């Protein structure tokens, strides 16, 4: 893949959500570059992930810890396991920069997470910053902006 088509980019973002819904977490993690970040801001329009609070700002090591933890026999908060469900709008391609090898998409979505009898609905916008590594698309940064980012939440255990 020299430069991805719009359709390939859109299909990639939709595929990422499907891997999460199907608990294919290792395949999901492999979509991220080694220096990738997954960011959920705490504030509306937040620009600084480090000196201002965030719900998540995790490198690949921390994401891997989460994925390993979900499998653990003593991960009591996952007995029973949570499940999740993504409903995406068609991802919109905000920028394509073939020279820089960087593609940015914007995807409004609803995310449902369930455990026991509880079912929580979250509304968010996902911004993917993608790049081509070794001929395949990878995620450099996934930013998830919750509509009610500063609200009081219960446990959010999986990935949006």
């Amino acid at each position, binding site marked *: 893949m020299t430069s991805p088509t719009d359709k390939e980019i859109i299909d990639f973002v939709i595929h990422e959500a499907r891997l999460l819904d199907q608990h294919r977490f290792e395949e999901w993690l492999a979509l991220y570059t080694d220096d990738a970040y997954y960011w959920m801001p705490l504030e509306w329009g937040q620009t600084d992930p480090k000196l201002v609070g965030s719900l998540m700002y995790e490198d690949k090591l921390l994401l891997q810890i989460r994925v390993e933890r979900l499998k653990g026999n003593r991960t009591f908060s996952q007995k029973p396991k949570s499940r999740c469900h993504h409903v995406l709008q068609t991802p919109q391609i905000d920028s394509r920069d073939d020279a820089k090898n960087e593609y940015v998409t914007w995807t409004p979505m609803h995310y449902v997470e369930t455990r026991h009898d509880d079912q929580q609905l979250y509304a968010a916008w996902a911004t993917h910053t993608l790049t081509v590594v070794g001929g395949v698309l990878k995620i450099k940064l996934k930013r998830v902006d919750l509509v009610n980012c500063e*609200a009081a939440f219960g446990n959010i255990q999986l990935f949006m």
Partner: protein
Amino acid sequence: MARYRDNVEAVRNLVRPAEVHRDVYIDDEVFQLEMEHLFANTWVYIGHDSQVPNPGDYFGTTIGLQPVLMVRHTDQSVKVLFNRCPHKGTRITTETCGNTGKFFRCPYHAWSFKTDGSLLAIPLKKGYENTGLEQSHAGQGMTPVRHVHNYRGFVFAKINDFGQGFEEFFGESLSSFDNMIDRSPVGKLEVAGLPLRYMHNCNWKMLVENQTDTCHPMVAHESSAGTAVNVWKNAPPGTRKPMAVEIFAPFMSPYEFFENMGIRVWPNGHGHTGVHHSIHSDYSAIPGYFEKMVAAYGEERAKHILGENRHNTVYFPNLMIKGPIQLIRLFKPLAPNKTLVESYTFRLVDAPDVLLERTQMYNRLINAPTSVVGHDDLEMYERAQEGLHVDANQWVNVQRLYDPAEPVDVTAETNGTTEWQMRNQFHAWQKFMTMSM
């Protein structure tokens, strides 16, 4: 049928020397009495004055279930007012924080109040002539919370005249605040952005107890901190230890580590873990920070300040602070089985930004609703909230390292895995619950 209201003896009997009746966690009436007595007779944390830097700035919070406003008055003092129009009860502000200018104006009928709460004006005031408004509660303006104390920027308030003065209530425990503040080379903290807000379906006291429960980390957090340690083991040799692993790994320390770190109890339910060392002791040095501290305080005092590594300090009833990492957690009761946890981070003024970066990382790795460590704890609280409905055993046990001769309301240092601090809290609970009944 009321079982506890107007029955001091029944309330007192909920707490025994080394066990506590389940009704303190699950009973609606006990919860209501906590709101009326415990949260009115004690000094409750309101906010930090850096949240209201300029005259007219306000910040809304609660004491128990009652909404209050912290506001910077025109004379620069910080007032705490009940957030209610004296007329019909309307909440005065709509935003959690903002600037109201020279006065508050009720959005319903435009009654207005100075920032100390006193009545400024009422539209069509003639309609109140000869009605005796001045003598009514409404004519007094917004009611101030009577007792307010600003301790080096941290504002506390007490609703009732019962109970103790600020200094007597906190006493030596203020040393934990001092240490957190002194970690700034200029002795000043600032709230750094919004708090993480985390809703817990459990009783607020479970969270408070957990702050000095040192027998759970290696068990409950095996899933998060233990996994972090294991994943890190597979890193290529020579890789620099990331800040996140420095934060996670000490949670997996053995019982011996926690036994040796020590617990200190103070009168009135306050106390802290980490007398000698703590999970915060072995963080990497931040370049340039120590030098700044030495320049500000001299080497001996700088070493002394940074040598304190208190783990969690509980300020009874519902505040916990972490001096070495500059964050606080406020456990706000909403119902017997519902608690809002707010975790605030602070910038050490004039210290390197990396310190704040670590504070923010700690907060999101440990205290966020998206935090795996938080998931471990909340799962346990919620299981306890359900399990306490078992009628066969109605008592919660806090007997670890109990000595029948154990004194109450004293300052003492002891083994870091004791449940003395929990007993200390329940002694204070019993005292402040019943003193106004």
